[in-house]
């Protein structure tokens, strides 16, 4: 039984308190500085607040209740251990403005994490400051721009495949690059020839995702990197799908010059309903001078911060990145070790292939090349019954599952992008496959049941058009 819960503002009773504070004195700053109209925050008791958030929380589906197969998002189990690690007093209470002397533990942790990530990605140096994947992309592309600028020409363009995530072109744009889209071939990957056709000396970089967003390995990556490098370009790799490659492939070895990591995907810092994340970036030696400040330098077993780096792109964010997320990723890597990390990749890929196999006779598989960590289906077979991807997604909820990512990548019409991750037990994959098959059957037999889904959730299908038209963004 999930209970209705009004907004807290609607529960306000003037004068009701939820705080516990000493009574302040009477004196106040000069009147002309004082706030005229108080902020209308709720007036409720602690009881009201606790109930409010407990009730609201119960309206959410979460990874901790079941399969959350959002492709490209790597919704794996988030260890409680790493949350507890970040909450250790001396980590959580460390103020970022104290001297290096007093935070040697933090600096060591970040320094080591940089090394671990460099090893995992096959890169030469890593910065942990970006706050999420997209921020990592921006940081990486800024380094690429600075690199080219240092050679006299920042260049104008960036090549991005049509299967790329929206953040890639958006990040390139903030670096003032023009985006050149290159199409994937019939196998869902990039043709070296297609890259060659657009690559020139005004192209700063290729931004590629490997494995790409179809879950396929860009097997021509080395050749493509050579093409780009030959024209003086650099290769940026979006590491969002690194989970498939841990301990299997070091992307740096392929020729990638810049790589970002999504700690909230591969290294299991929780998604928190949308964040926070962390997006460290690894670079090859030639890009090291451009790393954002500050740098952590190890000297005689002590860790110092270096601020003055003439070629650095500068600071990307106040303080030291999303440190709490770095602690979690560090703890995760230390718990798993080399064999554990490799096993993650293996089981993530096995799980994806198991689902693919289970559904390939029921749903259309637009790209039959071998899948790694995720597989992408489409609604092609169901469409004739009048049911579309969105309906199938909503109907999955009635079966107790979170839907996969839908309508992405854009190159698959009506895409259903399924990434189970390694932490999912076989039983839940079997149940998911059974649900997807049952829905396919419903599409034929009772399409309106699917079209009007979900039926068992706290809310029925929500009117998104109305939300955008009658914009109501606050109480």
């Amino acid at each position, binding site marked *: 039984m999930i209970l209705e819960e009004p907004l807290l503002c609607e529960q306000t009773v003037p004068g009701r308190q939820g705080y516990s504070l000493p009574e302040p004195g009477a004196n106040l700053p000069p009147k002309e500085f004082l706030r005229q109209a108080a902020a209308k925050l709720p007036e409720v008791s602690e009881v009201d607040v606790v109930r409010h958030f407990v009730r609201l929380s119960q309206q959410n589906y979460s990874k901790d209740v079941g399969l959350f197969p959002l492709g490209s998002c790597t919704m794996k189990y988030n*260890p409680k251990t790493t949350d507890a690690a970040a909450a250790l007093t001396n980590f959580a209470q460390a103020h970022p403005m104290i001297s290096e002397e007093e935070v040697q533990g933090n600096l060591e942790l970040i320094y080591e994490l940089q090394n671990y990530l460099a090893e995992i990605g096959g890169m030469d140096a890593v910065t942990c400051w970006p706050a999420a994947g997209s921020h990592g992309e921006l940081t990486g592309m800024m380094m690429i721009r600075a690199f080219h600028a240092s050679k006299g020409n920042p260049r104008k363009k960036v090549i991005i495949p049509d299967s790329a995530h929206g953040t890639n072109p958006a990040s390139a744009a903030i670096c003032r690059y023009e985006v050149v889209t290159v199409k994937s071939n019939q196998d869902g990957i990039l043709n070296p020839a297609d890259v060659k056709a657009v690559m020139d000396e005004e192209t700063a970089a290729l931004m590629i995702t490997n494995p790409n967003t179809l879950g396929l390995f860009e097997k021509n990556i080395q050749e493509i990197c050579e093409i780009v490098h030959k024209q003086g370009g650099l290769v940026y790799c979006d590491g969002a799908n690194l989970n498939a490659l841990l301990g299997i492939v070091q992307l740096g070895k392929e020729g990638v010059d810049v790589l970002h990591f999504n700690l909230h995907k591969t290294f299991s810092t929780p998604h928190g309903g949308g964040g926070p994340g962390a997006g460290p970036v690894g670079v090859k030696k030639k890009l090291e001078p451009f790393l954002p400040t500050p740098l952590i330098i190890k000297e005689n077993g002590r860790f110092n911060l270096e601020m003055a780096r003439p070629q650095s792109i500068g600071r990307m964010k*106040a303080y*030291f990145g999303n440190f709490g997320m770095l602690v979690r990723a560090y703890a995760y890597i230390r718990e798993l070790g080399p064999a554990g990390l490799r096993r993650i990749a293996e089981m993530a890929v096995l799980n994806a292939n198991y689902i693919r196999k289970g559904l390939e006779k029921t749903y259309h598989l637009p790209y039959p090349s071998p899948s790694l960590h995720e597989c992408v289906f489409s609604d092609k077979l169901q469409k004739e019954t009048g049911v579309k991807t969105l309906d199938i997604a909503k109907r999955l909820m009635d079966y107790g599952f979170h839907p996969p990512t839908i309508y992405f990548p854009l190159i698959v019409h009506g895409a259903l992008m399924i990434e189970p991750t*390694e932490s999912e037990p076989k039983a839940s994959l079997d149940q998911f496959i059974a649900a997807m098959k049952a829905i396919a059957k419903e599409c034929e037999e009772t399409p309106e049941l699917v079209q009007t889904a979900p039926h068992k959730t706290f809310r029925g299908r929500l009117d998104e058009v109305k939300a955008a038209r009658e914009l109501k963004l606050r109480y």
Partner: protein
Amino acid sequence: MRYIPHTPEETQQMLKSVGLRSVAELFSSIPESLHMEKPLNLPEPLDEASLFRHLEALAGKNRIAAPHRSFLGGGVYRHFIPSAVKNLIQRSEFVTPYTPYQPEIAQGTLQVIFEFQTMAAEMFGMEVANASLYDGSTALGEAILMALRLQPKRKIVLIPRCLHPEYRQTVQSLLKNFDVSLVEIPLSPTGGVDPGAVGDYLKEEIAACVFPYPNFFGIVENNRELIQRIKDQGGLIIFCVTEPLSLGLFESPGALGADIVCGEGQSLGLAPSFGGPFVGLFATKEKYVRQMPGRLCGMTTDSKGRRGFVLTLATREQHIRRERATSNICTNQALCATQMTVYLSLLGKQGFQKLAQLNWQRAEYAKETLTQIKGINLAYPKVVTFNEFVLKLPTAADLVLKELKQKEIEGGIALGRWYPELGNALLVNVTELNETEDIENFAAALKETVHGLP
């Protein structure tokens, strides 16, 4: 491995079902030459107990003062976090979902975002707020980019020197590649925005001027007149708030004329956590909403007419608009936003005011007490500050801080690093956690230190 459920038997069974004979075959689409030959060169695994022993030893290398013995601020503030916040924020249902793209099973997250937007907007006195950005410094970057989008022809952005130096640096990095002049406005004699220097730029090219509120020295300036002059020139007003608790006491940015307000929510219920994760706040006027960066949650109804919430105006965002999006942001700081929402819900209207008042009063008491020490004065004696202020010391602030740390006191931030012109200046922050006796202890220690040093 406790996070990976597969037993050897299951693995075999599943491999068989997908038609493979070995795990290695799963990776056959990857060219042979790329396969790693050796295991990753990383430390061997640790069991959980050993892991915690290791982590505690690592954390133990930090030397962290008790919050009441600390006087550190500078954009990150020590406030008491009620136990209810910590309890609620750990719930799996908040911690482990993704962005609420499927609203029917994410009403909890969505309603929290809606309430967060409401509170941020209220606090800032603005019409709309978004669902969070990374932090205050990147939010300021987004604010400037948005101002430039709103004023595509204008090329000058004014950034005062009294703004948080790391915010200035962040913005400088971000705008390096834009065809825009970021002009630094020098300190006024009272540690604020120099109106004269601003005046020099009051011409048509001015896109926006940033007002830190309170500024890096804790100074609260309302700049009403200056703001009007900029507006008259068509410049946009950006407020940047690093200590939003001040808004329990001081006039809201909206009432002072802000077009865009950005800020940092850390002080409202988040731990210092060595600088992150925090929560970037962003609010503006309704008419600018389509140029806003970041996610927005809106109210709507479901198929049965019941009220519900969804993400809306996604056409501004990267996953739809790609290179023409209003920002590249995707993952934001949702859980931190949730934490701030819980905190502010508990404080409520009155608590927000009372706590602000308490902070202000404690800092005033500290000002009085500390300036009774011979040789110690306020750098800006006649200004209004919130919970932070600058002291001039008779000796090098770095050395003083080191000595104080021997007494387990964090005395504040030496400003020389960013403001050499201020000499031996110390930025001292006082919150409700510093009680009268703590302030007096600090004063005694500071006195001893200053007079003990050469």
